[in-house]
């Protein structure tokens, strides 16, 4: 073997180890999102709705990752996510518009605040298990929602709070959605790397042990107090930071967004995707939030606005009235169909793939590679004959 092919083999080996590095997948996700934005900048027709869908979904993925550590690793159920996201949105809204704080200071303040809130809830949770814990956190979230509605001074009440500028270096700047999208991609990749490290570290394993059996975990030296607090702290920090990003990207926050429905959707996304996998959270969030925003909310079959529907109706001149009435009512129903879709999806996943859709992907992958190796064996036998 000559030296050139040796070098080539070494290169291939290096490439392989690069691809199998756990961060590689996160970078690919980030690169794909940036690529999509690049395509749009280059003039490819991608609607603003689709871009906004991806932007918001990225934020929901960040919130979901925090929740997956809480639920999938520490085994603590919470229905209070929405309240903490709401706190993040109002924190950044108030501190920017009324106080003129720069965004990086606000992020630090929000993280410190979130740690404090997480500690308080963690202490409350110490003696409460399972469903009761979910109800307690739901109650907390509802209290926060009432506060959002009534603390008009800070939140502008039920009218919602607007934020169109942020402060970076002392001056107010108009929010540029494209810049924030790029920043979001980088933050998402960073958060995925951090989450991966938490999950694979002794901390993650200690939480898994605690979820499985508290007495076994204690016997091995795991402090239940410490890890319960830590799990809640991580989940609240992710949620509040998610809220800050949401407000910065979307520019509007209203109390009715931060109700039970949002918390349940985050829970559904984690369960559909797979609560112990980063890609599972990614997949689940895109299924639950992304499809709703990008597909169900954008389909328009109103005969006055959709040309192909109008053409279809025109083919049946004797039934014009009934058909256009039908499509008009259908158009009103489509946005709510995402609830039906999500419900069916959750039932199917829980019945057949309790580990989430990510488990399905892994099963398929194993089946396909088995099939390929089987076929390759057949081909070999066909070409070279039976070995023995």
């Amino acid at each position: 073997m000559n030296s050139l092919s040796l070098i080539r083999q070494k290169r291939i080996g290096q490439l392989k180890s690069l691809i199998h590095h756990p961060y590689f997948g996160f970078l690919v996700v980030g690169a794909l999102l940036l690529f999509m934005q690049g395509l749009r900048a280059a003039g490819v027709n991608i609607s603003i709705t689709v871009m906004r869908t991806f932007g918001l979904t990225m934020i929901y993925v960040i919130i979901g990752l925090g929740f997956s550590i809480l639920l999938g690793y520490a085994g603590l159920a919470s229905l209070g996510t929405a309240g903490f996201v709401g706190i993040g949105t109002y924190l950044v809204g108030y501190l920017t518009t009324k106080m003129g704080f720069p965004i990086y200071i606000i992020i630090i303040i929000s993280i410190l605040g979130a740690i404090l809130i997480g500690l308080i809830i963690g202490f409350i949770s110490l003696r409460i298990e399972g469903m009761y814990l979910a109800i307690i956190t739901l109650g907390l979230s509802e209290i926060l929602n009432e506060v959002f509605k009534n603390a008009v001074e800070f939140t502008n009440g039920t009218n919602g709070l607007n934020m169109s500028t942020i402060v970076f270096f002392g001056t107010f700047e108009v929010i540029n959605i494209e810049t924030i999208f790029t920043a979001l991609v980088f933050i998402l990749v960073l958060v995925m790397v951090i989450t991966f490290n938490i999950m694979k570290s002794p901390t993650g394993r200690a939480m898994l042990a605690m979820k499985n059996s508290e007495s076994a975990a204690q016997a091995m030296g795991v402090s239940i107090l410490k890890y319960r607090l830590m799990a809640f702290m991580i989940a609240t920090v992710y949620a509040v930071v998610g809220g800050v990003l949401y407000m910065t990207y979307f520019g509007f926050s209203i109390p009715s967004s931060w109700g039970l429905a949002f918390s349940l959707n985050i829970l559904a996304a984690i369960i559909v995707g797979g609560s112990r996998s980063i890609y599972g959270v990614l997949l689940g969030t895109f299924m639950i939030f992304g499809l709703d925003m990008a597909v169900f909310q954008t389909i328009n079959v109103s005969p006055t606005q959709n040309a192909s529907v109008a053409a279809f109706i025109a083919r049946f001149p004797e039934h014009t009235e009934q058909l256009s009435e039908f499509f008009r009512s259908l158009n009103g129903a489509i946005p709510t169909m995402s609830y039906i879709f999500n419900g069916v999806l959750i039932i199917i996943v829980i019945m057949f793939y309790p580990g989430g859709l990510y488990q399905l992907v892994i099963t398929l992958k194993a089946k396909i590679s088995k099939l390929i190796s089987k076929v390759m064996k057949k081909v070999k036998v066909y070409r070279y004959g039976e070995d023995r």
Partner: protein
Amino acid sequence: MALLEIKDLVVDYGVIRAIKGIQLEVHQGSIVAILGSNGAGKTTTIRTINGVVKAKSGQILFEDKNITNLDPYKLAAKGIIQSPEGRLILRGLTVEENLYVGAYSVKSKTIRITQADGTVLTKKQSARALTKQSLQEVFELFPVLKERRKQQASTLSGGEQQMLAIGRALMGRPKLLLLDEPSLGLAPLIVQDIFKAIVKIKEQGTTILIVEQNAFQTLKIADYVYVLELGKVKIKGNAADLLKDDQLVKAYLGA
């Protein structure tokens, strides 16, 4: 000097007195067994040592320091690790992950070696290196775990799960290993395997306190035995002596 010493221990479950003042000593490098029938207070004793159950009065000394009623996770850091009754393996994790969880309380440490000429060598061992070393040791002790290390722990057989539970406790590099009924629900042949492994663990220098129902087997491997009845120490003595005393074995141990 005893590694573990229990003085006048009293434990209550509500109004019921489970342990009525027992004395117990575990010497370095030995296997000490606590035997007795159901409800004698065996498991309560081991749980009190491990801090899961709190003592009403009395003292537990470990290396001459008072450890009475400390939280279990603090005891693990001091070197007392329990392999709990009913195994309690972590079902959703693989065998290897289960073992890594066991190494949770291992900290980096420096070893001092005094050489012949009087100079002292200090050697630093990282927690990671120590963990790797104990993983090797556990795989040597239970080769079946090495074969199944990527397998989900819930798919193991009962005997393998017990081996995993003991291996997981050993990953924490205990000075004192507490075994709570390692033969529970296992076939006699597998019980023998487990007991052979326990002897090997002792030979490698770990002190063991074992609670068992299977009196006859335990008497064969133990050095010193305490027989409890209704929360009191009824008989104590060298295992070899007790094994010879047929009447006693029949009366209290039913073997």
